[in-house]
């Protein structure tokens, strides 16, 4: 009787400790990475490579999704606003939702899908083929060579891509709103500056910068701690993408509620 009670309590302890341990490891990983960010020298060449990989190569997909997001948003908002005769607010409505919310979030999703998964797979394969061990054997710190350039590239690329997403989206909205739905071009653009402050734009930038850090951090962590073999890498990749997407939405909520 007593034995089974102790067993039960032990089980509770175990289930509580497990996520705590994981969180601790993930946190420690970030702390180590941040430590090595500030220990010179910075591997500029790796950084440029990763900005190219995470940022420059995502331009097309981000622009494409941005255009369609802006277009559908305009269409939806138009039908809603038209009922109140408030179609003058179409431009500001589209621009505000893009800048504050959709730009940072959807572009982060797209980059996670395109670059985040590849990041996990690449680092995971380097782990299982012992390339990370080889780096350590040469006396070179894997964080400096692999993790730090990725984190920095994420922090730099995400806000730039989100801005691109916003601009393309707003112009996508312009095409639908002005050319298809017949809202006057002056109303569409003219009203925007009245409603958008620098704070809104900064708000969006805080978000996308945070997402950049979170996504690259999570993707690097899962790659770095990948399990054995091809199965390990595939599992790590799936987990990294899912965890990144969930965390994007969680952070989005937290930041929005903090900044309001």
């Amino acid at each position: 009787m007593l034995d089974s009670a102790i067993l039960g309590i032990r089980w509770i302890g175990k289930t509580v400790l497990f996520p705590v341990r994981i969180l601790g490891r993930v946190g420690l990983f970030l702390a180590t990475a941040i430590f090595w960010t500030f220990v010179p020298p910075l591997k500029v060449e790796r950084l440029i490579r990763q900005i190219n990989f995470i940022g420059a190569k995502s331009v097309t997909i981000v622009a494409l999704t941005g255009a369609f997001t802006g277009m559908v948003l305009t269409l939806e908002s138009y039908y809603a606003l038209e009922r109140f005769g408030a179609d003058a607010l179409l431009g500001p409505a589209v621009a505000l939702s893009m800048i504050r919310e959709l730009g940072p979030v959807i572009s982060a999703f797209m980059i996670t899908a395109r670059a985040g998964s590849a990041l996990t797979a690449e680092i995971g394969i380097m782990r299982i083929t012992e390339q990370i061990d080889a780096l350590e054997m040469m006396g070179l710190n894997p964080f400096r060579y692999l993790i730090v350039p990725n984190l920095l590239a994420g922090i730099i690329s995400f806000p730039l891509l989100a801005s691109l997403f916003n601009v393309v989206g707003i112009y996508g909205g312009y095409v639908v709103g002005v050319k298809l739905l017949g809202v006057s071009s002056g109303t569409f653009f003219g009203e925007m500056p009245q409603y958008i402050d620098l704070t809104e734009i900064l708000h969006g930038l805080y978000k996308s910068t945070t997402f950049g850090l979170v996504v690259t951090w999570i993707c690097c962590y899962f790659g770095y701690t990948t399990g054995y073999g091809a199965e390990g890498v595939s599992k790590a990749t799936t987990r990294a993408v899912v965890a990144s997407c969930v965390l994007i939405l969680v952070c989005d909520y937290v930041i929005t509620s903090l900044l309001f």
Partner: protein
Amino acid sequence: MKRFDLELAVGIFFLIGIACLAYLSIKLGRMEVIGYKGYAVYAKFSNVGGLKKGASVEIGGVEVGRVKDIKLDPEDYTAVVTFLLNPEVKLPEDSIAAVKTKGLIGEKYVSITPGASERAIQPGGRIRETQPPFDLSDAIGRLIYGSPGK
């Protein structure tokens, strides 16, 4: 060659990204890159409900300045609004400032109706005549409940 292509790609990416960011913050966010130049005048309103810093100041629908600051006068509980006006625009002393709304539910802005006086308001001076904004909910209330006299 390969390295050059890489740098070119990253360079182009940076240019595109920063151009987009600049477009958003300067065109839409009204970031003042050089700072808005102009002279300050102020006016006292009994009510400025909804007016924000940065709102435009217009004469006959043409923007001539911005709202720089809104404060409460602790002595007579009126709102003190400071404007920054385009130096080329000289306001006659008896001009009237009014808080107005764009459209039915749009943004609040300040409209100035110039007077006929020969003397202009000096920088730091005051626009004496003001009108509070037209309060939509107040008007609807009066319409529904009628004036108490009837």
